[in-house]
């Protein structure tokens, strides 16, 4: 910046990086601690006091989580539920967002309002009625029930998200495509879809993580071991008299892996600026 002395510039840089470093430490410390505890041998957990890294490392916790517990099953369940939810929500929200973004229809304001209202209820309040309804439909204690509930609870936000992404795609593009020989659906597929991939990526990622880490409904609706998702399964490490911290943390670290992989895969779709150059300046 002009008019600044060298000293001011250096001080500014130090301040900036210092602030970023503080934030990163703040955000990553819990994850670091989780990893640290997961590799700490059981006998050192309480005897060493608070240390940044244990004096001995072990993978025993991981081994017992993978071999001796139902965790692989929980994992699979979580993946089924999260992937299905993310997929269904994104497809439905894309169409709904498109309608809200492009069409004028009777009751549009009302639809938006109702969607918004669903977001204002405290979850705890709707659990009893949902439990009863799902029970009568035979949807408790299975993954379908979870998928339906997660879909219902994520669709409003995802719709608004997709609407805002679609609002960012100029209407002219679609009209140009329709003049060039597309039907509305063709235009959607060949022009709008490629341009909203970043938005869809963000929506998928958002819904996936929300479903992956959901606990409340999982806890309420699922009883049997075979249907538990990973977040519910984590609680099995909490015994009546003790918590098996090592195994719980190992399981948590394992649960982070799919999420990380997922974001790595989505990253290229999350790059914005794809619409740059579509229209004028």
């Amino acid at each position, binding site marked *: 910046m002009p008019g600044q002395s060298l000293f001011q510039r250096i001080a500014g840089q130090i301040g900036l990086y210092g602030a970023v470093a503080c934030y990163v430490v703040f955000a990553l410390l819990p994850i670091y601690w989780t990893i640290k505890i997961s590799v700490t041998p059981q006998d050192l957990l309480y005897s060493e006091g608070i240390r940044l890294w244990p004096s001995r490392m072990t993978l025993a916790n991981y081994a017992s989580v993978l071999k001796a517990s139902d965790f692989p099953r929980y994992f699979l369940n979580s993946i089924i539920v999260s992937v299905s939810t993310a997929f269904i929500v994104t497809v439905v929200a894309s169409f709904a967002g498109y309608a809200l973004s492009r069409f004028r229809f009777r009751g549009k304001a009302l639809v938006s309002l109702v969607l918004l209202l669903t977001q204002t209820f405290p979850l705890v309040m709707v659990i009893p009625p949902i439990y009863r309804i799902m029970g009568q439909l035979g949807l408790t204690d299975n993954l379908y029930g979870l998928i339906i509930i997660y879909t219902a609870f994520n669709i409003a936000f995802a719709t608004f998200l997709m609407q805002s992404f679609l609002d960012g795609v*100029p209407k*002219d*593009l679609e*009209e*140009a*495509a*329709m*003049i*060039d*020989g*597309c*039907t509305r659906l*063709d235009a959607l597929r060949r*022009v709008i879809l*490629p*341009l909203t991939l970043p938005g869809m990526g963000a929506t998928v990622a958002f819904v996936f993580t929300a479903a992956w880490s959901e606990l409340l409904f999982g806890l309420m609706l699922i009883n049997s071991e075979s249907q538990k998702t990973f977040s519910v399964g984590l609680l099995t490490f909490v015994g009546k008299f003790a918590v098996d911290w090592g195994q719980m943390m190992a399981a948590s670290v394992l649960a982070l892996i799919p999420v990380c992989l997922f974001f790595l895969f989505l990253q290229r779709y999350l790059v914005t600026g*794809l*619409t*740059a*150059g*579509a*229209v*004028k*300046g």
Partner: protein
Amino acid sequence: MASVSLRGIHKKFGPVSVLEKIDLDIEDGEFVVLVGPSGCGKSTLLRSIAGLETIDGGEIRIGDRLVNHAAPKDRDIAMVFQSYALYPHMDVRRNMAFSLNLRKSPAELIAERVSAASAKLGLGSLLERLPKQLSGGQRQRVAMGRAIVRNPKVFLFDEPLSNLDAKLRSTMRTEIKALHQSLKTTSIYVTHDQIEAMTMANRIVVMHDGIIQQVGPPLELYDRPANIFVAGFIGSPTMNFFDAVSQGKSARLGDGSALVLPTGAVVKEGREIVIGIRPEHLRFSGEGLPGRVVVVEPLGMSTQVTLDAAGERVTLMALERPSLAPGDAKSLTARPEDIHVFDRSTGLRLN
């Protein structure tokens, strides 16, 4: 190529009537320019022809075919948008080939048409670029190219040059005109730039508040505007208007001075009229309308003089270079045949 015929087009947005009883016949190969102030319904009319808006009444024919209910893709038209509307995820080649690809044209034909169009528009070296890697003028050309490869019956343009700077705009204006002369495709061109309208059009359509005011060749509109609106809209600097009352063969202005009316004017004695005189038709003379110089602006080729006369701001365009200073008293006159006479209440032309 085809003619376009509009019969009694109506269009409303909610309660607001945007197009009213539009009748227009555009001949095969004609270049018609729609002009009018912002919000007068030019774009709406163009979009109705394209099929992007549904009309509330009337008939649109392209060639002999009634297209009221045809989808945009079935009307065999191409449109160049003000925003260019290039597909950002496709390179220039794919942008241009898009419509032919959709039509499943054979690959050789597509390649041939694209290379012909890009040669015509000087886009040869840019075919592999994405729209965001192009300048404004290049994007404009790609948008044109995308329209020509189609070889459509009608070209529609919605202010295609308004995002370009002045110099590029005049170059592109010439290019579009040359393009039309070689392709001879029926074209409808929307603009609010009257230089574009005057220079490019075979015929100009002047619109105001959703109603066609006048249709005609550029010079006819300039020389014989049908009403006050057209007279004021076409021409720059704008025509000077004076309220007057007819008296014998002349018009008496507000300050008591008189101007001789053209011979063709049929005006009843004592009628309230408006006199219109173009700036280049006003001249300084010994007698006539007394005025006082306010501003003198030398433009090189001509000199624009602003005066106060008969209670109005008056503009005069002089080809010679008068030596004038602000405050000078000068008398103004015009030849009777250069005077336009309008009815003050209806605004219609009387001579």
